[in-house]
């Protein structure tokens, strides 16, 4: 299987009064066809900026993609005009967001909002598009789809709204679905429903998924491959089984040790000392070095490259130099 998406050395900066925020500073990864890539990290690490950069939705000003390349299906997205990008967005790359309540327009019926997306890209007559919306509602397990299309967002629960968003995202059969914390605003029992829906649809449609989450449990359950981000960079990347069974980067190890588990008792949680660095003035060398238990001289001076130290398992850490 070939790569559907190839991101290389992507850097997105935000030029603010407080200084230049280097939200992404050289991010590289790829997603194969039919693959779910999990992107995991804490607040401010650049997960969402990665997604909006791919979608061409970085607000400018203050944001700007300063270097890098995003190859999608062989096309360089960064050189496309806004008009060309608009035909890709929604049709070939679709996105669902964390908060379905704010992604839907409160004054339009949900069926219409899905139908409008279909009409906008395919010029399908609106009646037909509405029927297509009802069919999609059925496919995402919204009960009584024909009645549901004429509901307003406030008449639906959070889980149902997220199903509407998924129906909209899938309406044009996109090759890539970007799901940015799709279940973070939902309850555990509803989260399981939405995750299983995404998984089933991904299988049925054969789409690729970029799944962004701060929840390692969600990532472990869903992703084939995982990339861990820290402070605007990917610090580790590998197959889910390798990464969770044998995490290499001290940050990944620290994260896994810091999470309380529902399936096991830990007497004390391990702590990653310190806080997430300021992106306007990130530490020199490895950005994790001020918090790293293994820190060496070289870590303060040189940024470690992301390279494979085991088959299909990459890490950006000087400790694996030799």
């Amino acid at each position, binding site marked *: 299987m070939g790569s559907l998406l190839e991101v290389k050395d992507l850097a997105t900066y935000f030029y603010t009064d407080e200084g230049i925020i280097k939200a992404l500073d050289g991010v590289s990864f790829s997603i194969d066809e039919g693959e779910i890539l999990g992107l995991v990290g804490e607040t401010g690490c650049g997960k969402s900026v990665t997604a909006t950069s791919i979608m061409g939705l970085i607000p400018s000003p203050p944001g700007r993609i300063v270097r890098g390349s995003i190859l999608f299906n062989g096309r360089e997205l960064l050189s496309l005009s806004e008009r060309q990008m608009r035909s890709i967005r929604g049709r070939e790359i679709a996105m669902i967001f964390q908060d379905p309540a704010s992604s839907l327009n409160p004054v339009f019926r949900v069926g219409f909002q899905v139908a409008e997306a279909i009409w906008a890209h395919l010029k399908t007559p609106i009646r037909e598009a509405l029927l297509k919306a009802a069919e999609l509602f059925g496919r995402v397990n919204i009960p009584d789809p024909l009645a549901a299309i004429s509901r307003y967002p406030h008449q639906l629960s959070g889980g149902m709204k997220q199903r509407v968003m998924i129906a909209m995202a899938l309406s044009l059969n996109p090759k890539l679905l970007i799901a940015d914390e799709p279940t973070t605003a939902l*309850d555990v029992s509803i989260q*399981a429903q939405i*995750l299983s829906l995404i998984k089933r649809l991904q299988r049925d449609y054969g789409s690729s998924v970029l799944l962004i989450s701060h929840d390692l449990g969600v990532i472990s359950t869903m992703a084939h491959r995982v990339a861990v981000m820290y402070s605007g960079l990917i610090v580790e990347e590998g197959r889910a089984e390798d990464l969770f069974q044998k995490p290499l980067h001290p940050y990944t190890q620290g994260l896994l040790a810091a999470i309380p588990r529902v399936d096991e008792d830990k007497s004390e949680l391990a702590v990653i000392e310190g806080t997430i660095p300021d992106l306007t003035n990130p530490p020199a060398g490895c950005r994790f070095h001020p918090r790293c238990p293994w820190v060496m001289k070289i870590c303060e001076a040189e940024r470690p490259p992301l390279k494979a130290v085991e088959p299909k398992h990459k890490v950006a850490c000087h400790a694996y130099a030799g």
Partner: protein
Amino acid sequence: MPTLVSAEKVLKYFPIGGGILTSKPTGWVRAVDGVSLSVEKGRTLGLVGESGSGKSTTGLLLLGLLKPSGGRIFFEGEPLEELLRRDPRRFRRRAQIVFQNPFASLNPRMTVKDIVGRGMKLHGLVESDRELDERVAALLSEVGLKEEHLSRYPHEFSGGQRQRIAIARALALNPEFIVLDEPTSALDVSVQAQILNLLKGLQRLRGLSYLFISHNLAVVRHMSHEVAVMYLGKVMESAPKDSLFSDPLHPYTQALLKSIPKISFPPEDIEKKVIEGDIPSPVNPPSGCPFNPRCRRAVDICRAEMPGFREVMPGHWVACHLV
């Protein structure tokens, strides 16, 4: 273990509609609907449930910040109502709260010294400004902050540090009981671990009793000695932690535990772990057991009658007709 706080069949109904002009409510939200539980001295009761299950309302009721619509609450064996009537200020000193969002719970115009020290001043526990400085500085160091933070404002701190300030404020009056309402839900995992460890340490040192409210079962497992599971205003199951997590009896608890995505290899099949259906509205809860529309094992009696809350093993209580 002696009990510090207990609730007996506590109800809290909020009126819908009805205001200053139209006095008749059109319905009731049954936020808390017959909750019985107890918090033992020096221990943590974890209260877990999904949104709208009544966790936070229960917390506020136990602190006397909401008046129950029915049932009784006891604090060290005395009716809470009585304590509040006799000396509300004294009771405030004994029971405190830490909220979920440290960005909203701290006044942005007050310095850390004012936020943490205000209670001590109002309760006349300090004689001079110098003493206040010393006491607040001691509290700050207890929660892992520094004396130089005294004159800073909340916006100068990260989320984790703000939650430390909120904890220092809760400790300032030397309480026996603290309600922790989702204290780490707004924080990143690496910071969450720091705060959870801090809370555990403080409990050991000060002999505090906690009501730990969270939607996160893993965090509740880590923090609690006993756990109560709420659904739609009712406690469905409560038990010592080990018993609840290793041998959950209620179908809701079982399904909830299953539906949490876990870090495991091979990855779990999430499609097999789903609880169908939505959480019903507490305005119009299903008849009988509130979980019956989503329960795979539901039979006729579940739809007709709310099961009683029974002790089926020592300390392990469950509200289910089938157990």
